[in-house]
């Protein structure tokens, strides 16, 4: 009888410890996928996707309610990364991606109304009342909020020009010959 009690107690202890450890190892907090996707999105809360911000968009993407191609500032690169993360195939052909864009203030039209810099989610525009406004290229995500806000149509989005610094070789074509 003692043998049975001891062995069963031991088994109980060992298995219980195992379960406790497993619970710690495989602990899940919230939905990690949503968090990961949220971290991949630009985070500028520009709302171009139709969601109020990046986190709700991330939830929609994770649940499959929204396509991976929803984020215009992220472009094809982000869509590709999201598709890879979710293991889905994305139809990127439909996505009109003219590459990343940047906002530019047209100096001859800007009246210095300060509206654009108030809406910029990344504080990428500097200006003051009745002064020419300027976009800081490195901080602009091309979300387009400023374009909508400008009463004199002096903010436009322009594709980023390739320069000698940013250019690199395209992927080589493998023109495979038939080996018979």
């Amino acid at each position, binding site marked *: 009888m003692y043998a049975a009690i001891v062995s069963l107690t031991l088994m109980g202890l060992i298995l219980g410890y195992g379960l406790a450890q497993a619970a710690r190892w495989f602990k899940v907090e919230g939905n990690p996928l949503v968090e990961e996707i949220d971290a991949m999105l*630009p985070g*500028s809360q520009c709302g171009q996707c139709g969601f109020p911000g990046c986190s709700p968009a991330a939830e929609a993407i994770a649940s499959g309610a929204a396509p991976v191609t929803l984020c215009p500032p992220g472009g094809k690169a982000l869509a590709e990364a999201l598709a890879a993360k979710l293991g889905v195939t994305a139809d990127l052909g439909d996505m009109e991606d003219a590459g990343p864009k940047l906002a530019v203030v047209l100096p001859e039209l800007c009246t210095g109304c300060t509206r654009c810099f108030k809406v910029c989610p990344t*504080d990428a525009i500097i200006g003051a009342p009745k002064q020419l406004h300027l976009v800081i290229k490195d*901080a602009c*995500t091309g979300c387009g909020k400023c374009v909508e806000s400008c009463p004199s149509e002096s903010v436009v989005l322009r594709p980023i020009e390739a320069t000698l610094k*940013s*250019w*690199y*070789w395209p992927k080589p074509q493998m023109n495979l*010959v038939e080996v018979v």
Partner: protein
Amino acid sequence: MKLTLFRGGVHPPGFKEQSASQGIENAPLPARLYVPLQQHLGAPAQAIVRRGQQVLKGELIGRASGPISAAVHAPTSGTVVAIGKHTAPHPSGLPIETVVIEADGNDTWCELHPCDTPFDLDPDAIAAKVGEAGIVGLGGATFPSAVKLKLKNRNPIHTLIINGGECEPYLTCDDRLMREESVAIVEGVRLMLRALEAQRALVVIEDNKPEAFAAMHAAAEAVSEVEVVQVPSLYPMGSEKQMIETVLGQEVPAGGMSSDLGVVVHNVGTAFAVHRAVRFGEPLIERITTVAGSAIVKPRNLRVRLGTPVEALFAYCGGIKGEPARLLMGGPMMGQVLPNMQVPVVKGSSGILALTAQEVNEQSTANCIRCSRCVRACPVGLVPLEMAGRIRVGDFKGAEAWGLRDCLSCASCSYVCPAHIPLVQFFNHAKGELTARAQADHKAKETRRLAEARSERMERIKAEKAAAAAARKAARAKKAAEEESAAPAGDSETSTEQKETSA
């Protein structure tokens, strides 16, 4: 000297006979020179001339901007007719900021500051003169030389290696320079030694250039600190790390710099330019360029003013036979494809090659047969087939894990691959892609931080406003309450007054 040859490497046919027998000739001065403001690694120079301005030969037209940059000088006297975009000597064919000078034909020097006793200058003064002269690595890497001469401030330098390897096929400009200007080169080497405060210099020459070796040997005979070393001809001997391994037997660690070992490598052409700059005060406005390839009627070595259009050189070399299949700047292994013949010669143009279709020998690609020839050829010890396989399916991180960052882009692997897989093209693409992604990632992180900082600030302002409003409300309430409580007191006062008056 005991040599330890690096692993791998290939023996491409040299094709050097075409131009090696030709002495250096002066290329004619063209009517217009197209001088790009960026002919070096680092930040572009800032133009300091205006359109219509007269400039003299050697006058500064672009000032170095930032710690890694190089000055640009007018290659001849004349008028600045434009400052704007001109096609860069770069495979992308993209434009680059360029100063266009119309030569007046007089070729008048500006005032120079020669120095008869250059060995009395202190080390930093030599480096400063080299920087003012706009000298960059003339082997093709175009890294600003003055920056390299100041490396001693980071880590003491004991050995200066002068790279006379010239391992690329077709190129013979360093070979000719060593044969014709050996004494000047040795002086340049001694000046660099002084600038670096290093003890000895090794001039390393491949054994396919016996005349250059003999000339340099004779010139360095009486100079105890300069030794001339002959090494076997093996591509890519001219690569910095491979050369150090060969002559010093030390391997530069992956991701490390040669200066970590106390070694600095400069090209022979750079040594010559340093001599001209320090002794005669001449800025870098010309270089020796090999014009070769089977599509060239008479291959030659030319002393070319920077900014000369490539087509002017071809015209001087008897023109072009038929339609060249490929134009290259530099050698056929690592050179850059040129977009057209109007691009200018720049500081890094060691050679201008016009190759026929037969020389290019474009072949169709087959699948990898895992013969491992690329592995044996790689001088770094990488596994090109594995890296290329990953890049082909877009797995750049995987390629990086196989050591992509250590790849020299030397093209030895592509050269030996029997399946003609464009291995090095895959690697160049992947390196660019990884850099672009790293930059995009960095930007995304930074803009995210900005966006978060902004929403936090908005929240705070809102909270502050709310708090201020609440405070105002509270103050108003308090005041009202005070007034209320004060009113009866006032009443009583008046009533006492009234009482007093009534009394």
